[in-house]
């Protein structure tokens, strides 16, 4: 299934025109430079530098409270760093006002941890929200786009339901439909499989992969679900106490020598040495 409309301008093909010739590294789309962030007495990031590349799915791993969700909110400008700079496509957005950030945010879609559907709006109105706000399309076209997005995530026919009538997995799917409604260049996923049964979680993983394939987006996924990370990630980055302790392909992370990485990926706090092989 593929969509026909685009409403956020032309998007470069992933790994195509944006990649440097000769297989060189793809272009950075988001760059966090020397980020420091503190909440009261708790320092989340001390000096975080991390880049995300166009067309790639980067999975950011780490224990609860390590700052993964904070990182997503910093990228969108929902939180401001105490120090450091944030660049989107080479533009420094760190000091932009809420008003200046608004057009930039339409280039992003975000799937929130608890889906964060507007509970006073129907499924249709949730998915249509950004289109009505920014796209200035006729209502008929908005209806058609919403119908396509919902069908894409397997939620066709639920337009008139309220979020309270949906299960956790259904909410996540509607959240994804809402995130992709504006044809974003980058989709941010905050714990997309958290709280879901393994089968539903796998369905969400399949949808993330499908979005990557069909919509050709850059994806940043934060999770502590290793099955999900291996399934969807081109690149895995692991955060620990505000710093990056591992960064590589899923296979490199699987064989990473750092005991903290091995404890995390095996879910075994008693590990004292990396398992052989």
């Amino acid at each position, binding site marked *: 299934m593929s969509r026909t409309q685009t409403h956020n301008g032309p998007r470069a093909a992933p790994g195509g025109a944006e990649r440097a010739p000769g297989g060189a590294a793809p272009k950075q789309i988001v760059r966090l430079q020397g980020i420091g962030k503190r909440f009261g007495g708790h320092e989340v990031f001390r000096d975080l530098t991390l880049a995300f590349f166009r067309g790639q799915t980067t999975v950011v791993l780490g224990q609860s409270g390590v700052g993964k969700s904070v990182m997503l909110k910093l990228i969108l400008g929902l939180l401001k760093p105490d120090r450091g700079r944030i660049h989107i496509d080479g533009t420094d957005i760190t000091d932009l006002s809420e008003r200046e950030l608004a057009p930039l945010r339409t280039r*992003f879609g975000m799937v929130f941890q608890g889906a964060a559907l507007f509970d006073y709006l129907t499924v249709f109105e949730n998915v249509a929200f950004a289109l009505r706000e920014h796209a200035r399309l006729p209502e008929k076209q908005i209806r058609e786009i919403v119908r396509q997005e919902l069908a894409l995530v397997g939620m066709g026919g639920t337009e008139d339901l309220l979020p309270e009538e949906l299960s956790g997995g259904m909410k996540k799917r509607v959240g994804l439909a809402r995130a992709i409604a504006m044809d974003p260049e980058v989709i941010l996923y905050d714990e997309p499989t958290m709280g879901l049964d393994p089968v539903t979680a796998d369905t969400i993983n399949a949808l993330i992969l499908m979005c990557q394939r069909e919509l050709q987006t850059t994806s940043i996924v934060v999770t502590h679900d290793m099955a999900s990370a291996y399934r969807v990630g081109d690149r895995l980055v692991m955060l620990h106490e505000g710093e990056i302790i591992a960064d590589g392909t899923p296979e490199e992370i699987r064989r990473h020598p750092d005991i903290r990485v091995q404890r995390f990926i095996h879910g075994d706090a008693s590990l004292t040495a990396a398992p052989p092989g």
Partner: protein
Amino acid sequence: MNPAKPIMALGRHVADQTRGLGEFAVFTGRVFRWLLTDATRWRLLRPQLYEIGVRSLPVIVITGAFVGMVLAAQAYYQFESVGLGARSGSVINLSVLKELGPVLAGIMLAGRVGGALAAELGTMKVTEQIDAMRAMGADPIKHLVVPRFLACFLLIPFLTTYCDFVGILGGYLVAWGYGVDPNEYWRHSANAIENWDIFAGIFKSVFFGAVIALISCYKGFRSRQGAEGVGRAATEAFVASFMTILILDLFIVLFLQGLYEALWGRVSIFI
């Protein structure tokens, strides 16, 4: 104990309160900026008009009616003891129109609507719905606060008028029950009440509606995480709205009295 500690604590408290006032002023400024630059959509306003206006009517009616009746019961005995029972209507109806109607309608609105607004927006904040709105490049103030503000601002004059009406009716019923001559009761009331008195009550209610909406929405937006945070936001919204209504009432009364005297000179029901 370090003797500087209480002074430091006081300084921190003053700084926090000042910062809070500044944030509230910025919040209010953003609400008015959207009000002046963007037409609120009927689709957003309609549910708020229903929730804030229609659903507040029962509580307003009961409050107004019983306040009028209690006032009549209290006033009648005092006036009757000096043979002026029929004149009680002037005091009852003036009190309802100028003070009790608008203030009690405001307080009931703060309790019923203010707490609910803060809890609703607080829940939206802790469930990341407000962040989701910002993440889509939309301003939550425009979508969530402006329609609620407009609904409170536009409907409170009608709710106050309703409260006044049932208060006057309740007072009359009690006076009639005591055997007061209806013609005398209404004649004295009509002599004592001027259009200005009706205007004064309605005029101040508009300010009450505005502060209830602004304070309650602000408290909701500032809600801390969890059920306790939302509950606290709702309580703070009511308490702050209640106190602001009482303080604002004094200043509006002083202003209106000064204005009246400047325009028409001093007038009393006893002259």
